[in-house]
């Protein structure tokens, strides 16, 4: 079946304004008659809930955190893109659109990406008005820096804490709406199911993480803003609680999951330190503005980095990609790091270490330590805390790690999934980044969706449905709540001898190895065989201590791991069927002799949207053809 993305007709520059005009409106007096549920309070969820509350809708917002200010958006470091052209360096909406389409390896929807570039300028204005303390020039104007995948300086930043400041801005706007009574906040609540009534999403089932109470919530529309799923790898840069449960359970209720195999490995992470590590730490990509990436030319060179002379160093990114140098996009930089380490030129402790140097020596000589500290001080501090090494004196060691997931629930141009009334925004949807996300674009998308897109499109949907209250006593709600309770009881009653972490790590190892940065048919088939085995053992051997009627972090974890164990299979199916290399999806069978990705536009210029058919069954593939009317797909070169 082919899917309709509902892209408006007309020239790309006018699609969004034309569409906004054509969307039906809800009269201000009627807005308060509509209830909207927003799940997740990261940049997308908090900005959406705040804006919808401001418009006058009745909003209920849910987060499993103790407060909306903790969402993982807070950890984004480097910045947020916007086509302001404040630097007069040739930037424009069209160039940001072009860079994003190309960066995504021609696997995203053109109209969405153009709209993203278009509203990017409003996001900065909105954030400034909220008091986000962006970096400023001496004249008082906003400062910018450059980021991977771009040749202009369009990234706005607040030290190395841009995500934090943008999230706090959205969070404060949200709390203002809570105070105004338009938004009701449900912290420490985890969404465990979506309720579908007559084919429309009409509510959710949640578990109160403190009392363990299962509750039914009804609304006229449900918005999922629940982030990405790269914790399927266990060792990822995501916060420990990030998970796939909300989107996966929506998938089980009939929402299509699009491009699940598109996971980004971020090139600048602190390498794993050894025997036990719970997660990997990201260092902002902005470090590559001034840091130079290198490894020794000689295999197995164990000398201290400061003792390796210039002529014996291989600045491989600058060598291979002279025009973008250290600022090549993330997928390119990540794979390049993997290659040099596979060759045995990795650095750091151990026999065959997997790490490369990110060296600030030249930048410190050129700009002085103070300037570098001003730009990246907190990142250097973070690095030193974790590694016990001083990056001002010794080059940092970095290695790629699973990071952002470009896949997510399928949505049309209105950000609505194939289930009417179920909207999906931010990292939880698939739409804007294609097969690879450029740096500083995640914050942009989350806020674009939440502040400037969803508030219009959801109105267009609500105007077509009645404002009669939806009862949460309908059989659909009761059935869903019972299923959730049954699932929890099942987890509690296995009574095996292993922790949920044990299985999560086993799955993660397999996924990193076979469905990771680089995949091939054999490995993927192997993964598809092994994932169900791990899953089976999980349901026989896991142990969840305690009960379901109070705080039980093991139970929360076990539920999420159970979903990862099913979802992992979907990722492998998708990676196996996509017989091409593009962006974060690198199939070893499809590469040039010098290791660059080979895309197959004739066969695979589509979004792969999967339909659930039962645990362990092969999902059904639906395709949304991608039409490139404005940017002709070309070989992606950064040389």
């Amino acid at each position, binding site marked *: 079946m082919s899917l309709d993305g509902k892209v408006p007709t007309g020239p790309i520059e006018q699609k969004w304004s034309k569409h906004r005009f054509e969307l039906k409106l809800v009269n201000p007096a009627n807005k308060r008659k509509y209830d909207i549920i927003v799940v997740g309070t990261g940049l997308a969820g908090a900005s959406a809930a705040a804006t919808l509350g401001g418009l006058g809708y009745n909003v209920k917002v849910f987060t499993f*955190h103790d*407060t909306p200010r903790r969402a993982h958006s807070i950890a984004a470091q480097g910045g947020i893109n916007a086509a302001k052209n404040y630097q007069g360096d040739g930037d424009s909406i069209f160039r940001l659109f072009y860079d994003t389409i190309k960066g995504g390896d021609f696997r995203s929807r053109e109209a969405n990406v153009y709209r993203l570039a278009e509203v990017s300028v409003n996001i900065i204005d909105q954030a400034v008005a909220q008091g986000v303390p962006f970096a400023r020039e001496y004249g008082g104007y906003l400062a910018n820096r450059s980021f991977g995948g771009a040749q202009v300086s369009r990234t706005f930043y607040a030290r190395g804490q841009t995500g934090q400041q943008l999230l706090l801005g959205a969070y404060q706007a949200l709390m203002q709406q809570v105070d105004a009574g338009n938004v009701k906040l449900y912290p420490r609540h985890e969404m465990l199911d979506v309720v579908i009534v007559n084919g429309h999403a009409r509510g959710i089932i949640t578990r109160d993480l403190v009392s363990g109470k299962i509750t039914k919530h009804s609304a006229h529309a449900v918005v999922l803003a629940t982030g990405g799923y790269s914790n399927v790898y266990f060792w990822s840069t995501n916060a*420990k609680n990030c998970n796939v449960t909300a989107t996966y359970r929506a998938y089980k209720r009939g929402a299509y999951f699009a491009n699940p195999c598109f996971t980004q490995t971020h090139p600048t992470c602190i390498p794993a330190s050894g025997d036990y590590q719970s997660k990997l730490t990201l260092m902002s990509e902005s470090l590559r503005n001034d840091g130079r990436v290198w490894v020794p030319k000689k295999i197995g060179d164990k000398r201290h980095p400061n003792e390796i002379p210039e002529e014996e160093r291989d600045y491989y990114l600058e060598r291979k990609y002279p025009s973008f140098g250290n600022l090549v996009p993330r997928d390119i930089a990540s794979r390049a790091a993997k290659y040099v380490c596979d060759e045995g030129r990795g650095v750091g402790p151990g026999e065959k270490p997997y790490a490369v140097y990110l060296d600030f020596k030249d930048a410190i000589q050129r700009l002085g330590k103070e300037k570098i500290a001003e730009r990246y001080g907190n990142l250097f501090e973070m690095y030193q805390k974790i590694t016990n090494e001083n990056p001002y004196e010794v080059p940092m060691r970095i290695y790629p790690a699973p990071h952002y997931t470009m896949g997510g629930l399928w949505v049309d141009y209105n950000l609505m999934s194939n289930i009417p009334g179920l909207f999906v925004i931010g990292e939880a949807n698939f739409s804007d980044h294609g097969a690879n996300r450029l740096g500083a674009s995640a914050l942009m998308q989350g806020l674009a969706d939440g502040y400037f897109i969803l508030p219009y499109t959801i109105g267009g949907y609500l105007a077509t449905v009645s404002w009669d209250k939806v009862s949460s006593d309908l059989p659909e709600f009761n059935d869903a709540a019972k299923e959730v309770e049954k699932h929890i009881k099942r987890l509690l009653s296995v009574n095996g001898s292993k922790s949920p972490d044990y299985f999560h790590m086993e799955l993660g190892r397999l996924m990193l190895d076979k469905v990771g940065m680089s995949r091939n048919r054999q490995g993927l088939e192997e993964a598809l065989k092994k994932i169900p085995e791990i899953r089976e053992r999980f349901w026989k051997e896991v142990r969840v201590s305690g009960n379901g009627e109070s705080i039980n972090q093991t139970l929360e974890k076990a539920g999420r791991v159970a979903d990862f164990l099913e979802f992992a299979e979907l990722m492998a199916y998708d990676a196996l069927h996509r017989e091409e290399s593009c962006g974060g999806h690198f199939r070893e069978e499809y590469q040039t002799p010098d290791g660059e990705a080979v895309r197959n536009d004739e066969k695979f210029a589509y979004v792969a949207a999967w339909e659930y058919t039962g645990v362990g069954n092969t999902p059904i593939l639906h395709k949304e053809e991608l039409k490139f009317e404005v940017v002709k797909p070309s070989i992606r070169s950064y040389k």
Partner: protein
Amino acid sequence: MKITLYIWRQSGPNDEGKFVRYDVEKVSPHWSFLELLDVLNNQLIEKGEEPVAFEHDCREGICGSCGFMINGVAHGRQYAPEGRTTVCQLHMFRFKDGDELYLEPFRAKAFPVLKDLMVDRSAFDKIIEAGGYITVHAGNAPDGNTILIQKDIANEAMNAAECIGCGACVASCKNASAMLFVSAKISHLGLLPQGQPERKRRAQRMIAKMDELGFGNCTNQYECEAVCPKGIRKDFIGRMNRDFLFSVNTETESKDFVGAI
């Protein structure tokens, strides 16, 4: 190395709670402090015992979820001589074989214990709700560059804005004062031109809410500053007090606050 932990175990807000001893063997210096607890918890789960509840998420020192007392000091700050640490950023290379550590939750009337090392910090949200924002609806903001902000002012606003809301300041204060937290927000927004229209109202409402929720007053001992993972300075408390005094003398809402001065 071997680390002995005495951990506060409390099954719920109404339970009495007590310290329980746990020995963790073969601790690697590379582990973070929370990884030490992960390892202990996995061992407890496998033995069929209840693991220790503690808050955590990003493990990069930015989300503000984690935090408890280690040997009486929030975030185990005494083990990070360079300062500015969250407990997730404290690594085991700071400790030595045989160390005995007491872990207990942040204690304050406004932060009731939920379980073990977890406390309820929603009081902070209520304070923000009372005025810790700039009112602006999406879509009507002027161009960002029409609001000029002196570089050092923007930097100082950022210094205040860095607060992660972990609550260590409250836990370290003998009066359980939230003044460092509140002053950070008041300073962040009060320093910026965008924050001026609501500045007085903000100071009044946030401070009133802070009092109402049971946080105490500043004792001028600055333990809060010493343990703050983000280096929020006590100077902001002075700034907050100035804004408050200025507001009570000039703002109409002031009549409710005469007794507070």
